[in-house]
């Protein structure tokens, strides 16, 4: 391979570029990113950065030892992948001939159709989003967070600590029921009320009201929640539109086998935009967690460099690790590994729901399939290892 182009210059793109060099690729390496910034870390955007504890410079993902000798195209949008010519097409028309392509375009925050263009309504995905939100998080302001997922939960927790009056609204009856299951979703989202943040569940948003600036959130049951600032945290959509005509198979993200190979030879996908085949669920599964975006590029790059005759069936080999993520809310570190959807029971093995310090194990029959911890990092680490060992056996 002479040229490999990495599209998306964030966590997964950077780790793909590093993996290419580490695995001996010495050809031309092009990295395309539509944001003007060098790769930066997103998790602190809802935590320490939003809280004002750290500055933007410490979000840099690259270190002093990075010597990728890559051709960085920052502020450039990839608009298409031309499979016949094997070219990545940039806005403006430039075409980059590429023998290999790593798709790492991530995801973008979903917005609320109802929000119109009122000022004071935010999503949180990028550094620019975080800057814009941060200046509005002033003590005493009324914040309504729409969506009690992890990002919504973290924003609520950070804003509360900054002295805002915070309400979280969630359309589902139990927050986090998807990732954590109903039982543990209720325990983790109980943190809001513990800390004086109001949580309204099972009611959707009808409209955002205000003139110029947002003034309130009207719920489906007619309640009007006054608001000076609104954060919409209702999930993310994979950035795959640019591949629509490419012939790469798309579903909920770029569909890949267990090594990150897409339906087009020479094209792999990693990170939040990618839906790798998940044997435990028997289908492609898009994972939107930091650790997967960091670890999987090495697997995908290896399969890319091995070339088309690395053969084997689409479900062979590859990444057998179970997905892992963490979230920091209030003073609690939440860690989860596995798939809650596989489980038919969950038991607290250590600590208790009331103390907000616990280790819970999810099982299907007798077999552990996932683990959740609240402030139990050591025990969680052991469980995660065991689950991974069982998964690769």
């Amino acid at each position, binding site marked *: 391979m002479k040229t490999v182009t990495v599209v998306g210059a964030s966590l997964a793109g950077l780790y793909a570029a590093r993996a290419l060099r580490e695995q001996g690729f010495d050809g031309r390496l092009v990295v395309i990113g539509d944001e003007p910034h060098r790769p930066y870390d997103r998790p602190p955007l809802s935590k320490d950065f939003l809280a004002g504890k750290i500055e933007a410079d410490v979000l840099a993902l690259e270190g002093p030892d990075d010597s990728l000798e890559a051709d960085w195209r920052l502020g450039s949008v990839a608009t298409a992948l031309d499979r016949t010519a094997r070219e990545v097409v940039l806005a403006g028309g430039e075409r980059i001939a590429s023998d290999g392509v790593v798709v790492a375009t991530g995801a973008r925050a979903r917005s609320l159709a109802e929000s119109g263009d009122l000022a004071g309504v935010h999503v949180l995905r990028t550094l620019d989003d975080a800057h814009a939100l941060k200046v509005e998080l002033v003590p005493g302001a009324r914040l309504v967070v729409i969506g009690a997922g992890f990002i919504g939960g973290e924003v609520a927790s950070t804003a509360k600590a900054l002295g805002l009056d915070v309400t979280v609204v969630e359309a589902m009856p139990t927050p986090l029921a998807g990732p954590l299951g109903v039982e543990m979703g209720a325990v983790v989202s109980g943190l809001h009320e513990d800390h004086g943040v109001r949580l309204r569940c099972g009611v959707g948003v009808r409209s955002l009201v205000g003139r110029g600036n947002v003034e309130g959130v009207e719920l489906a049951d007619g309640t009007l929640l006054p608001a000076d600032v609104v954060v919409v945290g209702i999930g993310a959509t994979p950035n795959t539109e640019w591949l629509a005509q490419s012939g790469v198979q798309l579903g909920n993200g770029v569909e890949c086998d267990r090594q990150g190979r897409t339906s087009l030879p020479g094209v792999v996908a990693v990170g939040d935009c990618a839906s790798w085949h998940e044997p435990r669920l028997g289908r492609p599964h898009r994972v939107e967690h930091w650790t997967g975006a960091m670890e999987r590029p090495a697997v995908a790059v290896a399969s890319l460099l091995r070339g088309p005759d690395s053969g084997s069936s689409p479900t062979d080999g590859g990444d057998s690790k179970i997905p892992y993520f963490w979230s920091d809310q209030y003073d609690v570190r939440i860690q989860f590994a596995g798939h809650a959807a596989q489980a038919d029971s969950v038991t607290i093995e250590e600590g208790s729901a009331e103390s907000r310090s616990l280790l819970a194990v999810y099982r299907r029959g007798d077999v552990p399939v996932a683990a959740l911890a609240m402030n139990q990092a050591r025990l969680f*680490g052991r469980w995660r290892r065991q689950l991974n060992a069982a998964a690769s056996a």
Partner: protein
Amino acid sequence: MIRVCPVSALSPGESLRVDAEPPIAVFHTEDGEILAIDDTCTHQDASLADGWLEGCEVECPLHGSRFNLRTGRVDAPPAKKPVRTHDVVIEDDHIYVELSDEEPNLPPGVTLGSRS
């Protein structure tokens, strides 16, 4: 010197956190070595004593950075800075830590005294 505990209280494969400023993590490796480093990961705020000990390396429980316990060197990212190491002295079957006088590499956002 900080008195940690009797050697017999820290079995091979185990680690413990000492509440100093900043906190210290003490490890007893499977090979019988006792080693001490700053407890706080240099990447973000996580306790390395809660990490996974393998050989003479610890893996951070939050994002998996690996640090060499003898040298403090980063063996796997995302951490970029080494962790400070401390000398360990065994006297009368007790573990003592001689605090390093180098500057600690605390993660951004964590300062001395900021942790509860």
